[in-house]
């Protein structure tokens, strides 16, 4: 028997287990018994919504999805809500929606969102919207789509040559696009380097942890508006009037915030009391 067990203290391994167990419980409770906590709309999400809402009739929106499965639950709600909003404009204002992916995973996510979460009924693929799939090349591809679109993109995600896709015939580069947007789970420098000089509205759906790193671009107005992770996604769903995944998570997120704040206070208080005892 160790000295700690003799004294009746909980070992560090068991302490970790208790902390993890409490995390699970604090998330599971609001999932089973929803608390219905209010979701105040932040000014940043409202700006994102307004920017999309103000897209003019017949405009072309170019969107790059650059998220993977690992961050799906964080950026997915915002991504779904954005796509739903743009598809609504495609239907109501004849907006053209061109979407591509920056990675293999992102291409699968785009297809999943369009087929499972968006209402494309009555819209014509290739005339109203197009999914270009994964355009490999990283930053070179991002530069290519806004400098020489026709040479950079050969086919859509199904292998159809772009010469046979009506929506893409008039797109030569960034000057033919009215708004750009992207979702990301990493640094956004490459997007800014290639897209910011176009002086077009740029929208961003960002993982929560990455938002502070984007601030230099947001503060300078290069990113017009952004969604801040899961929370921003929930706010956007509320603005859109189509509650989804993000809204379901918000109670649990509030609970886990509360739990972590309590844990910080408890641990700091315990640490201070131990120091005072030593003195």
């Amino acid at each position, binding site marked *: 028997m160790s000295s700690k067990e003799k004294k009746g203290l909980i070992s560090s391994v068991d302490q970790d287990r208790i902390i993890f167990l409490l995390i699970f419980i604090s998330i599971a409770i609001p999932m089973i018994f929803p608390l219905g906590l209010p979701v105040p709309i932040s000014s940043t999400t409202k700006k994102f919504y307004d920017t999309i809402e103000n897209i003019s009739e017949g405009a072309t929106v170019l969107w790059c999805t650059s998220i993977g499965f690992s961050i799906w*639950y964080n950026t997915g709600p915002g991504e779904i809500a954005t796509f739903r909003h743009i598809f609504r404009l495609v239907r109501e204002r004849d907006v053209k929606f061109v979407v591509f992916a920056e990675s*293999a*995973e992102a*291409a699968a996510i785009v297809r999943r969102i369009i087929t499972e979460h968006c209402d494309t009924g009555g819209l014509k693929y290739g005339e109203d919207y197009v999914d270009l799939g994964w355009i490999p090349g990283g930053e070179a591809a991002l530069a290519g789509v806004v400098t020489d679109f026709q040479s950079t993109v*050969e086919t859509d995600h199904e292998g159809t040559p772009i010469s046979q896709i009506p929506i893409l015939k008039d797109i030569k580069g960034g000057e033919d696009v009215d708004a750009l947007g992207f979702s990301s789970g990493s640094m956004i420098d490459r997007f800014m380097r290639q897209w910011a000089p176009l002086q077009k509205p740029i929208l961003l759906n960002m993982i*929560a942890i990455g938002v*502070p790193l984007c601030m230099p671009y947001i503060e*300078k107005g290069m990113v017009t508006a952004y969604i801040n992770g899961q929370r921003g996604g929930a706010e956007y769903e509320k603005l859109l009037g189509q509650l989804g995944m993000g809204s379901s998570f918000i109670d649990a997120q509030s609970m886990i915030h509360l739990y*972590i704040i309590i844990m910080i206070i408890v641990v700091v208080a315990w640490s201070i009391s131990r120091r005072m005892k030593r003195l």
Partner: protein
Amino acid sequence: MIEEVLLAIFCVMAWSILYKPNPLFRIAESMTVGLTLAFVIYTGIDVLNKRVFTPWSHGLWLTPITIAGILGLMSWTRLGGKNIRWISRWPIACLAGIGSGLAVRGCVGPQILRQLTTNSLIASDPLTNINNILIVVGVITTICHFTFSYQHKGVLGASAKVGRIFMMLAFGTMLGGFIMTAMGYLIGHMFIIVKPPAAYVVVVAIVILIVDIMHSKGLF
């Protein structure tokens, strides 16, 4: 239904590391790596098929994709003998050159010139004013912290200490953001797991866990 049950099984297997290292966690770990690799290879071949072979089948031979395809094939010579290995350096040189060129071309405006300009430090919103002051003080004091040409005494020493506090706040905020992002993953999975039929998997896992704890305590 099967998708949800499988998700629950793999989640529980992965989370079992929080209790203690075990074979189920190692299986989940290996399957994650294997499935991810398989998916990337599958998608890679799919993209090659659609972006390279399909245009070729339509007679589009002289395109940038063809040049990229040739460069890609050249990179495979790295696996060949010493006589042809040098060929693989060309695609790498092209990648490095194009990458650097693109980055330099784009970075001057958004990353250098635009960042050097500033709006008025006095705004109508008082909170923005406080924020602006904090930014200026934070930048100057943090630079002071990394000024090693002079000894950290007097004004420089005090500034360096304030700079250290700013950095601690910044790193703490980033860590907090990272933890909350990680919690976001957990919340997403829990959303599926707490509902039947996936919830039954969790019940079985809890029973196994209790049995193992009791066994390890020598209760039976």
